């Protein structure tokens, strides 16, 4: 009797538990945000030197949205990040595949990749300015470099880590090298590539502000830089929050794509 009820209940349980658990997580997230805002307000009212409170910042944000600056800045920054990021990952994927698949390519490329990986992209900025002037090119280039370097390594790792037995399984079914590459290596390394893209996006976004220090006319980083000159902390906060929100949104989008494309993976 007890056994029967237990059996009858069990299939429904995981389905019911999953949403309630995520609802709980979301609730906790909200609580955390509220606590953060309270602490922030407290710090501002106690009078930490010049620190604007949430309301002040919200008002500033309203202002910047109303006069269109925030949108222009955000679009300018987004464009740089997206162009740099797309070019970077677009190049990183074939290069990573070449390095993972051909020992010769690996031998030739690895020293450069490993070397430039140890240089923070920001350190390239002076060089980029001297070589490329102060237009859009050096900014996009630095972001491109940051995105490229972080995704090339994980693509390469993904290709190297493809399970040998899967390759052998394809070979014994009569697959040519080309088929193995397209039908086994590419899908098997997709999870790595997507992780690399997320890391790449993170570092592209992270490089943005510094890249916009290069004599920009607009952009979130530029705006914050300007605000710094006038001790305009509220604008700096608006910029920071905008960067955070946009970065988070893009990361979630990629995460969603990752879930879609790699839902075949066994997750523990």
């Amino acid at each position, binding site marked *: 009797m007890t056994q029967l009820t237990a059996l009858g209940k069990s299939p429904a349980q995981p389905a019911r538990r999953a949403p309630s658990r995520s609802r709980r997580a979301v609730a906790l997230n909200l609580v955390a945000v509220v606590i953060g805002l309270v602490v922030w307000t407290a710090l501002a009212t106690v009078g930490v030197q010049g620190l604007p409170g949430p309301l002040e910042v919200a008002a500033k944000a309203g202002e910047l949205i109303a006069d269109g600056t925030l949108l222009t800045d955000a679009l300018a920054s987004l464009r740089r990040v997206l162009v740099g990021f797309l070019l970077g990952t677009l190049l990183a994927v074939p290069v990573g595949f070449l390095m993972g698949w051909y020992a010769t390519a690996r031998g030739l490329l690895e020293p450069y990749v490993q070397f430039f990986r140890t240089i923070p992209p920001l350190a390239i900025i002076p060089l980029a300015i001297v070589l490329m002037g102060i237009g859009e090119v050096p900014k996009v280039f630095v972001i491109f470099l940051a995105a490229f370097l972080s995704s090339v390594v994980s693509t390469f790792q993904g290709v190297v880590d493809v*399970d040998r037995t899967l390759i*052998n*399984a*394809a*070979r*014994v*079914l*009569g697959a040519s090298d080309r088929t193995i590459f397209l039908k086994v290596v590419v899908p098997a390394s997709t999870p790595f590539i997507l992780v690399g893209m997320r890391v790449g996006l993170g570092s592209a976004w992270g490089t943005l502000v510094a890249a916009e220090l290069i004599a920009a006319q607009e952009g979130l980083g530029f705006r914050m830089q300007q605000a710094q000159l006038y001790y305009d902390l509220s604008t700096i906060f608006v910029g920071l929050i905008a960067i955070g929100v946009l970065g988070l949104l893009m990361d979630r989008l990629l995460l969603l794509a990752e879930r879609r494309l790699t839902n*075949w993976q066994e997750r523990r």
Partner: protein
Amino acid sequence: MNVKISFRDVVKTYPLKDDTFTALDHVSLDIADREFVTVVGPSGCGKSTLMSMAAGLVEPTSGEVLVDGSPVDGPGPDRGVIFQQYALFPWLTVRKNVEFGLKLMDLPAEERRRRAQRAIELVGLADFADALPKMLSGGMKQRCAIARAYAVDPQVLLMDEPFGALDALTRVQLQDQLLDTWSKDQRTVMFITHDVDEAVYLASRVIVMAARPGRLHKVVDVDLPYPRTEEMRLSPEFGRIRNEVWHAVYHQAPAVPAA
């Protein structure tokens, strides 16, 4: 009796730091067309290496491996391989996995689908044809791997401890199923196992290997008629053969040190 697979004086060595490691030491073995042989032996005695040579995945250091009288040159769909670790493509459904080899054969789409369906039904996975491997149990994964190999209709089946990770019941079911299809299609089967019972139950000949260096130790004929039945497992004759194989595997004299 036609010879299907022939290992001739096969040696396989791997380089070590200062000398070489002998994985297989002068192995000669003929497997007849439509024969079912099982290979047993202690871990590391070179069973997988031997089989991989027939599959064309590993080349002998010296000696040669012939299939149908001609030297093996790489893998091919005439020799189906079933790996111990299932080796299913995790991003493909059961059906797509089974169709993988068929797609490489330039068959018309309809024929391809028909053959995949038949193989899937044969191993009893029809209800899971559109499931991803992550949704399958170990036994179902292995059955999918078997279906994938069957679908291309190889003349030779090379199976490396295919049932090793399965529970006893599933294992017995798959054994009977394998024998059943083998007796219908009469493929040549080389089946590696570490389970002496399984080795005797399936084979017409059990190849016992020894380690360090890997070599042939003994060949035990199994003079039990096919179809094999569960009662046979309890027969005195089965017991006698099992003892003989058991003894050959677990009471091997240490190897004469190589000069």
